[in-house]
């Protein structure tokens, strides 16, 4: 599987956020997107996720499931944690596993991997910000999609949580997955490719 972008241009609200972005990623590779605030890190991830359309250029996925679009094979971990306060931790995770699919490591294993096993029956309303983030990480594990798009994944996580995240990412890469992460600091991937946005502008 190879994910690449050529000459990508993103325009939002009449303003060019970035132009001429190129990258190419193969199985088991990670790309860390860096740049100052407003340089378009989140927009780039949303472009890849299919939630925005590029003003020019294209994003190509080779070797994935030909029946599915790129956005149907990608995980998107945005700034917000899409949880419903009235549902329990387990129900939230179960819904996304059923809706997004395909099944990955299984619900209980995913909760354990994110360190939430003892909170499974608590309504999501009572979770702290870091615990909400962990529940979003559990989603990555419980659903088996090969491309992970992570927008500042370490935000709100404590050091133990960051270690778990790094472990999950390394495991995903070892299985041949792809990761594109927007980050300001180190996120625990040593041999990742780097893409810096906003320097030319």
């Amino acid at each position, binding site marked *: 599987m190879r994910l690449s972008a050529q000459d990508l241009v993103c325009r939002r609200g009449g303003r060019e956020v970035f132009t001429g972005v190129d990258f190419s990623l193969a199985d088991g590779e990670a790309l860390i997107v860096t740049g100052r605030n407003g340089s378009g890190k989140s927009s780039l991830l949303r472009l890849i996720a299919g939630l925005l359309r590029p003003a020019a250029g294209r994003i190509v996925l080779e070797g994935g499931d030909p029946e599915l679009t790129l956005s149907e094979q990608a995980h998107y971990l945005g700034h*917000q944690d899409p949880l*419903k306060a*009235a549902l329990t931790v387990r129900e939230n995770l179960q819904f996304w596993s*059923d809706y997004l*699919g395909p099944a990955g490591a299984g619900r209980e294993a995913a909760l354990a991997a994110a360190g939430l096993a003892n909170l499974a029956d608590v309504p999501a309303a009572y979770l702290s910000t870091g615990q909400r983030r962990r529940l979003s990480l559990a989603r990555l594990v419980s659903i088996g999609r090969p491309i992970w798009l992570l927008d500042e994944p370490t935000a709100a996580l404590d050091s133990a949580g960051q270690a778990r995240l790094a472990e999950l990412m390394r495991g995903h890469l070892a299985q041949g997955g792809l990761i594109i992460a927007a980050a300001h600091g180190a996120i625990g991937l040593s041999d990742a490719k780097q893409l810096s946005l906003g320097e030319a502008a």
Partner: protein
Amino acid sequence: MNALSALLLRDLRLAVRVGGGAGMGVLFFLLVVTLMPFAIGPELALLRRIAPAILWLGALLASLLTLDRLFAADQEDGSLDLILMGRAPLEVAIATKAFAHWLTSSLPLVIAAPLLGILLDAESRAMAAVALTLLAGTPGLTFLGLIGAALAVTLRRGGLLVPVLILPLTIPVLIFGVTASNAALSGPVPFGTPFTILCALSLASLVIGPVAAAAAFRHAE
């Protein structure tokens, strides 16, 4: 579990749990119908004659009241992004959400209408006709409302936009709903004529609504 049944089950669960607001529409409906005799006066013959119109108007306004929450809640917490990334066809996923919304906010109106008819001294035949026409017409209102709800979310303008956009589209449903209810009572046209048109309006909006809403999401900025 299948993706669409998971979505349906989640929306139903959210509506009936604390803070879900499933009862809001019925409460509003109750208020409109209870206040009407105070405004119009206690003349039973008049109330009885306009009961189908009042019940339809109350149900229409009550169903518009909750429409803007259809996608707004999912947009606020980022769930909408993931719903758009699902593997089920977007049109069908949207139709599923609309169906869940109809079950939790419009079906209670259909059930409440005959009971509220008592407050207006409606005849039992009128109440049955209103319930039947609401059952046929409210899916049309919900699915037309999808268009406004999706536009309000993609344009990031909540609140008033949905009723303003949707109200003109709902007028035919209101006209034929009330006409069919009155036809069941007094004629002169047979009940079937306006009722068939009402069903046709609902069926058309079942198709147009999800397709238009999905187009709004696909072309969002």
